[in-house]
């Protein structure tokens, strides 16, 4: 707290320091945002490599490439790294860059904590990844780490996993506190709450979700730690505990967590679509209320992940209906995006293409979610590839496409250069085709009964699995185009104007491109 004022004096109006220490010691929101984004991108490639190992093994039935034990480690680590290492830090990075620029603040409210919350992450993931090289191997109990798989039957590396989760939890909570403190206290004069850009709104709500549930995650891994090392029995029935309790506590965190991974993407898309449709966002207020309702509902639907554990009928019905209720605010949002485009003068630059793909493909993921919400039907879908198809549709062309769209949208503001539009479109089409070829067939093999998290499968699933593996390689390698494009844009390119996009609205487009190291030293006036 008081550090926020103390350190500002030695900063003045000079540029960044030189050398590596600039990045270690920086308290500048743009530097920290950049580091978050590069960290997330690195994790995307590491987690993506694991996905390709999984898809290679599944290209044909039978065991060909890796051992089943290693396969389990790959599915576990892929999930953990993508959720906690790629998607979440990427959103925090975008928030670091854009929230101060969008509300007219000179920096984040708590810049030193900001530095700290980033620098915890490489250590947390370093600790998680190094377990791959230990004798016990990496965690192998799935990213949901259900007890007793993760307690009684866990490899000894589980303790590193627990501390890794503690560290990333602390990092997320600090990031969320910083974002809320910035939004609530540092808005420019005239920037009332209901004038804030939707990206800021969705992040404000997301940050509250993070503060509400990341501590519960920390709690559940602490209980695991105590069961494993201190002789308690939270989850061990022999000592009076209950493994089903684990699932309740985990999903009490886990369901809000899935909205943490999608709400900021809603915000990004709500910025991009009005810009390229050249019309203001349709139903701004209803967007804010819809986002808040989704956040509220996320706390009362967790047991829809547990329909098959033996819940009583009334409980199944409650969670089924509560889950279906979420379709209403989500439908409002999709309706508003479509209405924004209706009769707009649309152009299809890369950010818009990714945003449009987001709307269509996220909706497909939403519909398969509704199918899974039907409790009696879920008994067939539960733990099959249908679930894998569902959550990859909301997380890859959902959350990840949202992030990529945001990066293309703001890249000229960050670097001062336009990216190569042809290459961007090529990247989009390769990603779009790759993602659908990978995940669409999974719906079919899931409905036909292929269980998830298995290294080998029955022969009748062979064709669709082969197609999915081909799609995975197309999708994975087309992200190298993105890497190349990013480096190319940072190093040079057509000079970007301050406004960058014709029809873009918001404070971030009033500052020069590239955004100077310090912005809004004098708070702008918002009409």
């Amino acid at each position, binding site marked *: *707290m*008081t550090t*926020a*004022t103390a350190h*500002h004096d030695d*900063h003045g109006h000079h540029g960044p320091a030189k050398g590596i220490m600039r990045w270690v010691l920086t308290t500048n929101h743009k530097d920290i945002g950049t580091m978050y984004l590069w960290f997330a991108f690195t994790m995307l490639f590491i987690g993506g490599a694991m996905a390709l190992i999984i898809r290679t093994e599944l290209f044909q039935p039978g065991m060909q490439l890796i051992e089943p034990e290693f396969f389990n480690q790959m599915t576990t680590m892929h999930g953990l790294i993508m959720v906690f290492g790629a998607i979440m830090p990427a959103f925090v990075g975008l928030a670091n860059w854009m929230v101060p620029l969008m509300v007219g603040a*000179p*920096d984040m*409210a*708590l810049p030193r*904590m900001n530095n700290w919350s980033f620098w915890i992450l490489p250590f947390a993931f370093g600790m998680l990844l190094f377990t791959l090289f230990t004798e016990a191997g990496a965690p192998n109990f799935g990213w949901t780490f259900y007890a007793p798989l993760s307690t009684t039957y866990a490899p000894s590396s589980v303790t590193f996993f627990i501390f890794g989760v503690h560290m990333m939890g602390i990092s997320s*909570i600090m990031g*969320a*506190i*910083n974002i*809320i*403190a*910035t939004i*609530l*206290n*540092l808005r420019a004069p005239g920037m009332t709450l209901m004038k804030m850009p939707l990206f800021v709104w969705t992040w404000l709500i997301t940050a509250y979700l993070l*503060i*509400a*549930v*990341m*501590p*519960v*995650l*920390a*709690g*559940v891994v602490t*209980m695991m730690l105590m069961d494993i090392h201190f*002789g308690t*029995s*939270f989850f*061990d*029935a*022999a*000592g*009076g505990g*209950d493994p*089903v*309790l684990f699932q*309740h*506590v985990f999903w*009490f*965190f886990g369901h809000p967590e899935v909205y943490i991974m999608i709400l900021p993407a809603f915000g990004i898309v709500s910025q991009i679509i009005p810009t390229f449709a050249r019309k203001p966002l349709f139903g701004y207020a209803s967007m804010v209320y819809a986002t808040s309702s989704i956040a509220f509902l996320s706390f009362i639907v967790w047991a829809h992940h547990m329909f098959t554990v033996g*819940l*009583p009928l009334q*409980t199944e019905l409650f969670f089924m209906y509560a889950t279906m209720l979420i379709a209403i605010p989500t439908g409002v949002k999709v309706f508003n995006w479509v209405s924004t485009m209706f009769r707009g003068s649309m152009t299809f630059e890369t950010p818009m293409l990714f945003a449009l793909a987001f709307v269509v493909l996220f909706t497909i993921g939403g519909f398969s979610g509704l199918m899974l919400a039907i409790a009696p039907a879920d008994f067939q879908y539960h733990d099959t590839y249908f679930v894998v198809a569902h959550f990859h549709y909301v997380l890859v062309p959902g959350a990840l496409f949202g992030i990529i769209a945001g990066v293309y949208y703001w890249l000229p503001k960050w670097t001062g250069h336009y990216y190569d539009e042809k290459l961007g479109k090529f990247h989009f089409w390769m990603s779009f085709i790759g993602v659908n070829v990978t995940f669409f067939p999974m719906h079919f093999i899931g409905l036909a009964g292929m269980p998830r998290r298995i290294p080998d499968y029955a022969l009748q699933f062979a064709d669709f699995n082969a197609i999915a593996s081909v799609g995975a390689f197309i999708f994975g390698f087309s992200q190298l185009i993105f890497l190349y494009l990013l480096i190319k844009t940072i190093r040079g390119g057509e000079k970007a104007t301050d406004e960058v996009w014709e029809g873009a609205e918001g404070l971030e487009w009033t500052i020069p491109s590239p955004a100077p190291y*310090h912005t809004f*030293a*004098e*708070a702008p006036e918002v009409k």
Partner: protein
Amino acid sequence: MTDSPKTSFKAGKTALKLVLAAVAMFGFGFALVPLYDVFCEFTGINGKITGPVERVEQWVDTTRTIKVQFITTNNAGMPWEFEALQEEIEVHPGAWTQVEFWALNPTQKDMVGQAVPSVSPSEATEYVQKTECFCFSQQTLAAGEGRKMPLIFALDSKLPPHIRTVTMSYTIFDAGAFAEK
């Protein structure tokens, strides 16, 4: 920076409140453990039976006969022989009945076991009253020792009429790590 001391004081206050909220939610995570037990006990949905209860003689509903089945399961890795000596009996609601279970420790070492009960349908849980059950405490068996273990129970005569069969299931766990001294 125009960041006035006043704004950063306000930001600090916001941050402090949020830190407290995070700490409270960490506590809430742990509070879910007793809340879960209270909820299960209150609704009886987990098949968790509280007891032992005081034996109260009640009206015996001889017009109805309920089939009561006993199922025993060994948790993975638990080597005991564990079975119900009567797999199925018929009782009238309200009547006290005693049945016997058999456990044998075939290993070369002394072991401690704990049976965890469950009732199906879960709706029947609150109507099952036990004055004595081997599941209420840990059972210690020396190497090679076998023992008959009693269960004395009654079904409440208020048992809903559509319930005709009650299944009582017991899973035996190796509780060596949690042995009570």
